[in-house]
Each structure stands twice: as C-alpha cells, then as structure tokens.
C-alpha cells in the first residue's frame, strides 16, 4: 500500500520540479506506473479479506476495486486534460496537475481508511481540490454557482454525519471498521435514534446522489472541466456508495423500517432522471442525469442489505465509473471541436469521425447495460434482490431499464447518425490521444467480462 501512497505523494514533487517540456509525459508515465502497481491490490489470496498496512489503513474486497479505479483514473485524467490546458501558463498547468494528484491521494486514503473518522476527514478533504478544479478551470460563468451548490449540498449532509459518528464513538468507544461488526447499536425506537440513523446516511445519500438531493450533480458535472467531470463521475460518487456500504453494518436493526422511503425515492429517481435525459439538449447534462439514474439503482441495492444487492451495487459502481468517464471524454471531444455542449450542433459524426463512432457505440452500449458487460451484471443483481424484497419494484426497475436503453440509444443516434449540420466546416481529425483515452476506459470494462470476481466484493 505504501508503494502506492508514497509515490503518489512524491508525484506532487515531480510536478513542480520537472522541466516544462517533459512535464506531461513524465507525469503520465509516473501515474501509469502507480496505476499498474495498484493492480496488485486485486489479488486476494486470503479468505478473511482484510489486508492491514498499518493501524489506520487497510483494504478488503470492497475497497480494492474502488482503489484500483481511483489509481487507474489518474493517468486517464491527465491524458484528457492535456489539450485544454496547453494554452495556460506553466505554473497553472503544474497547479492543475497538483490538484489532480492531491485528489488521488485523498481518495486513496479515504478508501483505505479503517477508522470512520479518517474516512470522514478524507471524504471532506476531496471536496477542496474538486471545488478548486471546478471553479477555477470550468468554462462557463455558472461554475461559481456550481461550486457553491456542490460544496454546500455535500457539507450540509456530512456535518450531521460527523456529529452522528461522534455520538457513536462516545457510546461505543471505537470507530474502527474492524470492530464495527461486533458492536451493532441495539435496536431502540426512540425518535433520537431514528434521527441518528438519518444523520449517518444523509451525507452518503447526498453524495450518491439520491434523487431528491441530486441538484448539485448536473451543475457540477456540466461546469467542470473534463478531468473534473471524470473524477466526479467515476470516483467521487462512489465515495458515497462505499461509505454507505461501510456504515450499513452498524445501522442494521433500524434500517428495516426506515429505509423504505429511500428505496422508493431511489427507484423513482431512476425513472425520473431517465425521463429527463430523454429531453436534454445539453450533452454533458444528459450524461450527468444518467449518472444520477445509475447511482439511484446503486443506492436502492445498498439499502436492501442483501449479499446480491451489495455485490450488484459494487459491480455497477465500478462499471458505471468507467462508462460514465468514457462518455464524458467523448462529450469533451465534441466540446473541444465545437466549443458547445448542445447536442444538435454536433450531429452526424459517423460520417466525419468514424473511428470515434466506434467508441461512442461501445460506450452507449455499456451505458444501456448490454450483456455480457459488467453493467448488466450489476443491474440484474440489484433488480433481482429488489424483486426479492417486493414484487412491485419490478415495475419501476423494468421501466427504468427501458428508459435507460432508450436514452442511451437516443444519445448515440443523435450524435452519430443523420446528416451533418451545415455549419461544421472545421473539425479536427481524432487525435491518437483521444483514441488511447477511450480505449483505456473501455478495455478494463471488457476485460471484466472475463473475470468479474475481481469486483464482486465479499460474495465469492
């Protein structure tokens, strides 16, 4: 573990001391090295699962896929940001890269934390680099508003979490994950305990996001620069899911009755946000709402608290991370050429950029959960466990799957097929860098078809 963390910290030093001409290549090679080394985490020889690095950091089958995703994403973010940062002065480029690297360090610490307070501190710490990336390097004026929404929604949810964790600590004595399973809170029907349950979960539900409190997500995703969108969609949302999975252990007796409205809200959100996607004119906004939709399924799966639900949620998180990030990269290729996010201004791309159309096709198919991709595996597992809980959820989830398929296909057809608009005179051919970026996104997804046990979590 330290092999990964210490090099990441020193990557910050490298950013500031490399000669400028070799900055991007050096950082890229360095981060690829770190990402490859992080793949060793996936090897799980023991049965109990927990690997201790020291008293405060450990990883287990739940956190190792997310850790690998985080490490894998850094080189991808660097590849993606190269173009739009090329015009900036040198120090700003270095600052941007430092922000991305510091974000990765915080994420590694968050996913490998053994104490809930450390997880909380790192959870909040990831907000600061993301806020700076969105508000400083975003492209439109609304980015300030987006940053404010992002920060305040997340903080308003997570400050009660801090108080709730402190309450638990003062009554139970320890917040270490390792002992959480043996110290569940006794079932009680006091109103205050229900508030405590709510406080524990609210932060993660806002981060996921759950449908009712999802307002920050489209704003933040749309206004962020490409690396910001990528990391937000791929990893930061998963922090919410991961936290929820960790804290479910101690919330157990209360969750049976209290989670009912949230499961319904999540499922309703799947349908609602899917329908919104069908009417979007803004490409990034479409992908953002599809993120809300998928994470609604994840939230429902986690709240069900069955092994299949957890497994499905984890697989869907990983698969959605890769897919969503790939879609944002594709949207960025459009944006860099037309400087507009409106879909109808960049249609008929299959005629002009056929190789990119392949990637659009694969990413759209992944989004609509085509077999045998892991997206489908996750969705089917969650839908099955929801069906086990109640027959009627099948209506909602079935409808949700239908709408997901239709908007993914809609997005593909609208951008690729049809006549090219007349005003597109100058479109650069696709860069090799962009092809590499998308290949690196979709290749792990395809490889996961072969060995999904890597991301299954505890159920083997």
């Amino acid at each position, binding site marked *: 573990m330290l092999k990964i963390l210490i090099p990441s910290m020193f990557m910050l030093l490298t950013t500031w001391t490399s000669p400028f001409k070799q900055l991007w290549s050096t950082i890229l090679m360095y981060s690829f090295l770190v990402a490859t080394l992080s793949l060793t985490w996936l090897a799980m020889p023991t049965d109990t699962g927990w690997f201790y690095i020291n008293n405060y950091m450990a990883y287990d089958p739940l956190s190792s896929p997310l850790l690998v995703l985080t490490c894998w994403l850094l080189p991808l973010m660097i590849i993606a940001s190269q173009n739009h940062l090329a015009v900036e002065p040198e120090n700003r480029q270095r600052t941007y890269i430092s922000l991305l690297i510091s974000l990765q360090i915080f994420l590694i610490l968050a996913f490998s934390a053994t104490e809930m307070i450390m997880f909380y501190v*790192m959870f909040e710490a990831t907000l*600061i680099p993301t806020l700076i990336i969105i508000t400083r390097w975003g492209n439109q004026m609304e980015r*300030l508003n987006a940053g404010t929404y992002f920060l305040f929604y997340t903080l308003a949810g997570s400050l009660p979490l*801090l108080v709730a964790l402190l309450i638990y600590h003062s009554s139970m004595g320890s917040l270490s994950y390792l002992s959480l399973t043996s110290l569940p809170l006794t079932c009680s029907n006091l109103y205050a305990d229900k508030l405590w349950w709510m406080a524990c979960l609210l932060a993660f539900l806002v981060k996921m996001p759950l449908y009712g409190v999802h307002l920050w997500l489209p704003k933040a995703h749309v206004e962020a620069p490409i690396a910001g969108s990528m990391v937000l969609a791929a990893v930061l949302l998963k922090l919410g899911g991961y936290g929820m999975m960790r804290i479910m252990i101690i919330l157990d007796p209360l969750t049976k009755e209290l989670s009912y409205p949230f499961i319904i809200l999540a499922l309703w959100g799947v349908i609602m946000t899917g329908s919104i996607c069908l009417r979007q004119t803004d490409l990034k906004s479409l992908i953002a709402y599809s993120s809300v939709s998928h994470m609604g399924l994840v939230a429902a799966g986690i709240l069900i608290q069955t092994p299949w639900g957890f497994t499905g949620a984890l697989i869907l998180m990983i698969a959605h991370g890769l897919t969503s990030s790939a879609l944002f990269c594709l949207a960025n290729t459009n944006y860099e050429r037309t400087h507009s996010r409106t879909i109808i201004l960049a249609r008929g791309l299959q005629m002009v950029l056929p190789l990119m159309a392949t990637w659009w096709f694969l990413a759209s198919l992944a989004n609509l959960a085509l077999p045998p991709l892991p997206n489908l595996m996750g969705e089917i597992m969650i839908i099955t466990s929801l069906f086990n809980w109640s027959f009627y959820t099948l209506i909602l989830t079935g409808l949700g799957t239908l709408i997901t398929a239709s908007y993914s296909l809609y997005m593909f057809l609208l951008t690729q097929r049809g006549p090219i608009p007349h005003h597109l005179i100058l479109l650069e051919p696709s860069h090799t860098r962009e092809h590499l970026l998308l290949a690196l996104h979709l290749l792990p997804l395809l490889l996961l078809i072969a060995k999904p046990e890597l991301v299954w979590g505890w159920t083997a």
Partner: protein
Amino acid sequence: LLFAMGLGTTITFASSHWLLAWMGLEINTLAILPLMCQSHHPRAVEATIKYFLTQATAAAMLLFASITNAWITGQWNLEFMSYSLPTTLVTVALALKIGLAPLHAWMPEVLQGLDLTTGLILSTWQKLAPFCLLLQINPSNTSLLLILGLASTLVGGWGGLNQNQLRKILAYSSIAHLGWMILVLQFFPSLTLLTLFMYFVMTFSLFISFKVNNSTTINSLSMSWSKTPIISSMVPFILLSLGGLPPLSGFMPKWLILQELTKQSLAPLATLAALSALLSLYFYLRISYAMTLTMSPNTLLNALPWRLPSNQHTLPLAITT
C-alpha cells in the same frame, strides 16, 4: 501606547484580585483608544467613541459584579466566585467586552471604522484579557453560555452574508468563532484556548494578506492575483480553514468541540452549531471566489513590488493536523 496595551493585558493576566483585573482591562481600553482614532477620519473617531462606550459599560458592569461578589462572600479573589448572580453578571460583562451575540452590535461598525492593522489588534489581542478572566471564574450558568455561544455562531454566520466590506466580514467571523469558543468553555477549557489560538493565527494571516493587497472591499481583492500570486493562492486555504473544512487546521478545533459536546449529550446543539458554520463558510467562499478563483478582466498598468512578508503564516495553515 503599545507598551501600555501590553501592560494592561499583562496586569489582567497576572491578577487574582478583581480590582487589579478591572484596572488591567481599563488600561487596555484607554491605551487602544488613541491608536484607533489616529487617522482623524470621522468614521474612525465614531468607531473609537462606540468602542469606548461599550467597553466602559462592560468594565463598569464587571466592577459592579465584583463588588457584589465581595459584598456577598467577603473576598476579592478571582477564583472563588460561587454565587450565581455575580458570576452571571461577570459573564455578561465579558461577553459585551469581546463581542458575543446578543451583545455584538458594536463589533462590525467599530471594526469598519478602523484601518486593518488596528482592526487586527482589536480582534486578536483585545480578546486575550477577557478570555483569561472567563477561564478563571467557573461559569456555572450552563444555559447562559450555551445560548451565548449558539447565538454567536448563528449571528456571525447570518450577519456576514450580506457584506462586501472586508472588515465587517472579519467582524462577523470573529463573532462566530467566539461563539464556538464559548460553547466549550465549561466542559473543556483547554479547547477554548486552542480555538482562540487557531483563530488568532488564521485571522492574523488574513488581516496581513488584506493589508498587503491594501484592499478593504471584496471587489478590490480581485486584482490581487497580479500583485502577489503566492498570497492569492494561499488565501483560499486560510479562508476555508476559517470555515472549518478538513483537512485544514481550522477543522481541528471544530472537531474537538463537537466531540466534547456530543460526549456531554448535547448532540442537537452540536448539529446546530456545525450547520451554522456553513453560513459563514458561504461568505468565506465568496471572498475566495473573488480573490483566486476568478480573474478580473482589467490589465494592470503598473507593476507593484512583490512583497511576501507573511508567507510563513500562510503555509502552516494549509497543512493537515
């Protein structure tokens, strides 16, 4: 003059007799008055007069409380205040002196009238003496302290939302932080000192940064990226630290205070205080937007010298605890 101020605070520190403590506070007040109206601007003079009136009232109330205590218990010692009436009076008097809500109304206007350095002295040094007294008496009136504390955090947050004058914003931030300090006073006094110290460091850096940019409104901060880029890039961290975001140092006092409050089963209060910190975070965020995260379109016609005097203050703040 500065010597007299230092003398005043030191006398209050070293005193165990109420009369001596009161004298120290009075010397403190009198010494800072000429410093405050140095510029002879009408607003500075007005601020000086307001400050004098409030501090004199507070000192008189303090003297009255200590005489009441002496009348009841027969001794003048600071530590032995066992009756609720004098203790409450002393607490209220000291609250007026440092500017806790609901006795905070003088603070924004007074700070606005001063220039940045004197404002700095007012918000940091002047708080030391009353806090030393507050820590030595044992305030037994729990609900009073909690009301003062919570009201201060809320007022500090809400009041600062509509401001764009930096000194008023700093006044409201001072009120909010003092609220946090008072909340934990009776449970764990060392935390009060910790919060006070952290607040001093952060406010000191902030005041100095504003002084370097010679700016007193948010709008005038927007040019700082060209004058002193390093300070411009560090100030968001100071501001977010004041707002209490982990992993910056400003989170540490908030976290420990919340821990102490939950241990004392005051969890709803803890939640309210934490959420009110969000209010003040909003205007800190606004300042950092103006200063660092956006670039104003005017080009700079003159190159100002790069003075980086307070770099060493900004760096420790950005490091995690």
